[in-house]
């Protein structure tokens, strides 16, 4: 297997607040190969967005306190700000959740879409606008030559998100990070955007990291998935396998909690008991153990390491590592 395009080694990002130190990302390691699609799943506060922002070194006011982010072999955490700027928007692009607020309201859309190539490749306005228009066309915006001169508020939500995707791709980056790209959109539009992301991944070969709290989105789009909880990865593996036989109680509970069409109607919903943990005062041992139905004595003492469980999956759970099936 070729060397990974992007690797994270035990990344730790923390926020220093008056109430204490928030360990938003608490030792995350992952590998992303060229052209792959990886999903990062977790609730609000699980650290998935901060992980992505840390890759881009946009985690301020948080601090990357330890760990490595290797892109094409270089450790991004050690780069100067000027060097990092060359990576941002050109080699690694990121698009965000709410297209309504993520585009600058006072500049024309085509201008914004073309800005990365003007910045990084020194193209002039006309050439950049040309690329912008063709990219808008590729992402499925009708009448792109005209629309490029419109302002963001003149687009619908779905169109705006397409424009954001176009904006991320003009420089043909190696990695595209999409942070909850469909959360702010209607369900029908969500499907279109996901289709678009798949198409982009196929056509351009861009490795894609899709961050979401929605398991359904991951299922439709990502080859591999990582599940995060309380700033740590609790499970990872091929999407098909993780969904078919989850190896961590949290993943297992998440999958169970989704209502299914083929269930008996009189079955009660199965939410996960308890509340998400306080990231300043994490519980000792496994962060999930207070809410876990499988916990054993060891779970409240030792933090489980992410190890291989089964053929293709990694899980951080004492219970499953000892061979118990969920």
């Amino acid at each position: 297997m070729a060397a990974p395009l992007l690797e994270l080694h035990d990344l730790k990002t923390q926020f220093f607040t008056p109430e204490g130190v928030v360990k938003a990302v608490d030792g995350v390691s992952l590998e992303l190969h060229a052209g792959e699609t990886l999903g990062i799943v977790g609730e609000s506060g699980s650290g998935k967005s901060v992980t992505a922002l840390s890759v881009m070194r946009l985690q301020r006011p948080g601090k990357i306190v330890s760990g490595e982010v290797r892109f094409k072999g270089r450790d991004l955490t050690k780069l100067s700000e000027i060097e990092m700027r060359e990576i941002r928007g050109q080699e690694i692009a990121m698009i965000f959740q709410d297209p309504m607020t993520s585009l600058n309201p006072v500049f024309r859309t085509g201008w914004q879409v073309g800005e990365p190539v003007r910045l990084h490749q020194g193209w002039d306005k006309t050439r950049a606008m040309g690329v912008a228009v063709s990219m808008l066309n590729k992402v499925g915006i009708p009448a792109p030559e005209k629309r490029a001169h419109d302002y963001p508020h003149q687009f619908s939500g779905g169109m705006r998100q397409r424009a954001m995707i176009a904006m991320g791709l003009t420089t043909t980056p190696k990695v595209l990070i999409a942070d909850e790209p469909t959360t702010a959109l209607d369900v029908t539009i969500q499907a279109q955007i996901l289709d678009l992301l798949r198409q982009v991944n196929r056509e351009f070969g861009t490795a894609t990291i899709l961050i979401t709290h929605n398991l359904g989105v991951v299922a439709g789009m990502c080859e591999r998935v990582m599940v995060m909880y309380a700033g740590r990865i609790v499970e990872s593996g091929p999407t098909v396998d993780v969904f078919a036989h989850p190896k961590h109680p949290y993943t297992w509970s998440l999958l169970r909690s989704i209502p299914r069409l083929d269930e008996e109607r009189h079955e009660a919903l199965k939410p996960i008991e308890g509340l998400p943990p306080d990231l300043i005062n994490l519980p000792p041992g496994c962060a999930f153990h207070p809410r876990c139905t499988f916990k054993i004595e060891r779970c409240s003492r030792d933090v489980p390491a992410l190890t291989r469980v089964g053929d293709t999956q990694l899980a951080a759970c004492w219970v499953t590592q000892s061979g118990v099936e969920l």
Partner: protein
Amino acid sequence: MITPLPIDAPVVTAPAAPGQPARSYWQQATGRLRRNRIGVASGLVLLFFVLVALTSPVLAAIFTHTDPRSIDLLNTFLPPLSPHHILGTDDLGRDELTRMFYGAQVSMGIGFLSVGVALTIGAAVGLVAGYYGGLIDGLLMRFVDIILAVPAIFLFILMSILFKPNTITLALIIASVGWGSIARLVRGEVLSVRTRDFMVATSSLGASDLRLILRHLLPNVLHVLIVFGSLYLGSVVLIEAALDFLGLGISPATPSWGNMLTNSETFFFHSSWLVIWPGLTIFITVLAANLFGNAIRDAFDPRLR
């Protein structure tokens, strides 16, 4: 402003202290105000000036043993720290400190009266316009537009030459423009409060218009009034002082901080101190009013910080 944290960083809130009763909105606000040192300090400064205004004759009797109008042409332009005249004397030999005491009466008197009148009229108009809406709102707000279109200082000067004002009329003159901004402000608040569920609920219980306005709308716009009132106090003191300075305010026979500076260019060559004292007190008073107003605003809505 709130430091931007990424979307999934947790919001940390202090847990409620067990066993304590919930405090009312007003109690919480006064608590926050009391803890704001600058706010308390500026409030005390204002209080100080009010007391000086209320007790000027007493203060004069105790500290300076003279009155503000007694002229002494043999002792004009005495410098500060002269015997019997701590702050010196003016161009007619009148004691400066005594005149400063009495000056407080004009500034504080007109200040509070003007604020009171403007707040009352402005609140009434704003409440009615916001509550009833439609034609009444349109008419009232057009009227406010007209009043606010005329430059205030021109209007004050005009009314001053028409009416030759005393303390009360001067306060009313100033308030006659001020109520306009207040009315607009109150109307805005009313519009946002009026559509809330509790208004509809109370109205459906059969409450009369007047009751709704006074008992339910007014308390919710009160905090806006208090904050604006304090800031407006500062503005009134400044405007009134400027009018006095121009000789178009209170009659020059009555000492006021503003008219103590009228034609003071002549003082430059005799005693520059005379230029400093009255202006300094105006500055301190207005500063205190502004800081106090800010403190009240922070106390009522700390999120706006």
